[in-house]
């Protein structure tokens, strides 16, 4: 079982060969974990390949996290508060194969103004709720998701997405004062 485990470089080369420019780069300068950057509109095809290819068999999605990279420009609004313009929002995918035992991290980045990422909820049903959470908390728009609506915040929450770095609490929600 252990002999079939693949290194991230091997997987990267295999993906690069098959998908070309959709596989952007291998980032391994980080001190802890290397990850592969993927184009946000190709992620579903690549994930399907990763799951079904007989040498890879990534049958389990460990975790899916939406992140606000906060790498845009800080703009001060009229009321003195600041917001971020430009830059990206990212999604990290942590995959694992229960049959072979190897792991892989993928990352996609989409522009903050138009954060469209293809959904992988049909590949791993596990992703369904995690994508809803990433939509709710960070505001990433997952295309082709079966049921994309808020999960943790109230369904009628209109003040945006709490885990954005420039999120501001509303003063009132349904007539109730929010800051306590």
């Amino acid at each position, binding site marked *: 079982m252990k002999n079939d485990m693949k290194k991230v470089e091997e997987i990267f080369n295999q993906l690069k060969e098959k998908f070309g420019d959709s596989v952007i780069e291998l980032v391994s300068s980080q001190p802890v974990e290397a990850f592969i950057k993927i184009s946000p509109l190709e992620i579903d095809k690549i994930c399907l390949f990763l799951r079904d290819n007989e040498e890879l068999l990534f049958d389990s999605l460990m975790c899916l996290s939406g992140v606000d990279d906060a790498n845009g420009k800080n703009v001060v609004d009229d009321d003195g508060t600041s917001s971020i313009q430009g830059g990206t929002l990212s999604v990290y995918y942590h995959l694992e194969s229960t049959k072979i035992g190897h792991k892989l991290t993928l990352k996609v980045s989409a522009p903050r103004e138009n954060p469209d990422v293809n959904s992988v909820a049909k590949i791993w049903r596990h992703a369904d709720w995690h994508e809803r959470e990433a939509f709710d908390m960070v505001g990433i728009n997952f295309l082709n998701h079966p049921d994309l609506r808020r999960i*943790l915040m109230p369904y009628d929450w209109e003040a945006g997405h709490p885990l954005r770095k420039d999120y501001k609490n509303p003063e009132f929600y349904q007539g109730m004062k929010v800051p306590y």
Partner: protein
Amino acid sequence: MSVEIENNKETQNGIKTEQMVLNLGPQHPSTHGVLRLELELEGEIITKVTPHIGYLHRCFEKHAEAMTYPQVVPYTDRMDYLSAMYNEFGYALAVEKLLGIELPERVEYIRVIMGEFQRIASHLVAIGTYGLDIGAFTPFLYCFRDRERILSLFEKTCGARLLYNYIWVGGLSHDLHPDFVREAKEFVKYFKPNIKELNDLLTMNKIFIERTANVGVLPVETAINYGISGPNLRASGLKWDIRKNDPYSVYHKFDFDIPVGKNDIGTVGDSWNRYYIRVLEMEQSLRIIEQALEQIPEGDVTSAIPKRIKPPVGQVYSRVENPKGELGYFIISNGSTSPFRVKVKGPSFVHLGVLNELCKGRMVADVIAILGSIDIVLGEVDR
């Protein structure tokens, strides 16, 4: 024995039927917290379950971004409040991985002992309240009596019964009290026969088996696809335990088995198996505790705690085998003293997602039996 639903709305006697929506919760003793289930019913048969969560949402992840790394520890306690020790354990491991620090052996041993005691305590609540859901009141009292002794051990060690703030990044808040090893050994000796008693009371009880065996069967492929982990995945027949498959801390030094679901009483992956795996796991936890208590080395438990925690720029996904399943922390560091992003993958959140799959085609009463068997804690579902 799930019943197939026919879609024609008129029965042969000319009686019209229509779909009904029933709300279970948010205030309901069998939902184990504030959870609302929207049940779509065809008579008494369930066609769809939609869980509505978020009633306990505190946005722990946003809080964490405004804290320094050590300040996050008490917040992790409050996610799965029945296994607070293990939440701290997982968080500490993740930050230590970012920092790349080595720990004294004594710290590792104490963490494992506390973690396994916590596993027993958490499973005792799961088992006791599951019996309660099904209608057996006595085992609940027995379980809580034994759990109380574990909580007393914790209280004597760190002063708190539920939310400990004991396992810190790089060490522990303080050492074991001098009597701990003796008292822990006493507990192991006291608790062993109680598992047999529990089996006589509940596990092999005919009414209990009738209510739980073959109910809510989860096939192993579905389980993996839904990201199910921990006892629920093992009940479906996959021998998968992060303590063995991806060992962390000092678990590789101990001899223990991974129980998996069997076909003898019910079918693999049913509610009864999910329940019984937890009973078997308590025995294994006792084995680990016994070995760890024998081998525990001397040492200083606070020597490796960094004065100022400032990890290098990077990101880490670290996971542990929490009593309920795989608890993962995804932490991004931007080089400051506060985490840039903390994402928690909690087992309860994931396990609740498969509920619709398990309940489809079953009766209303089975929802309670299934929900109890997957053992969720709403504090962690909503975080």
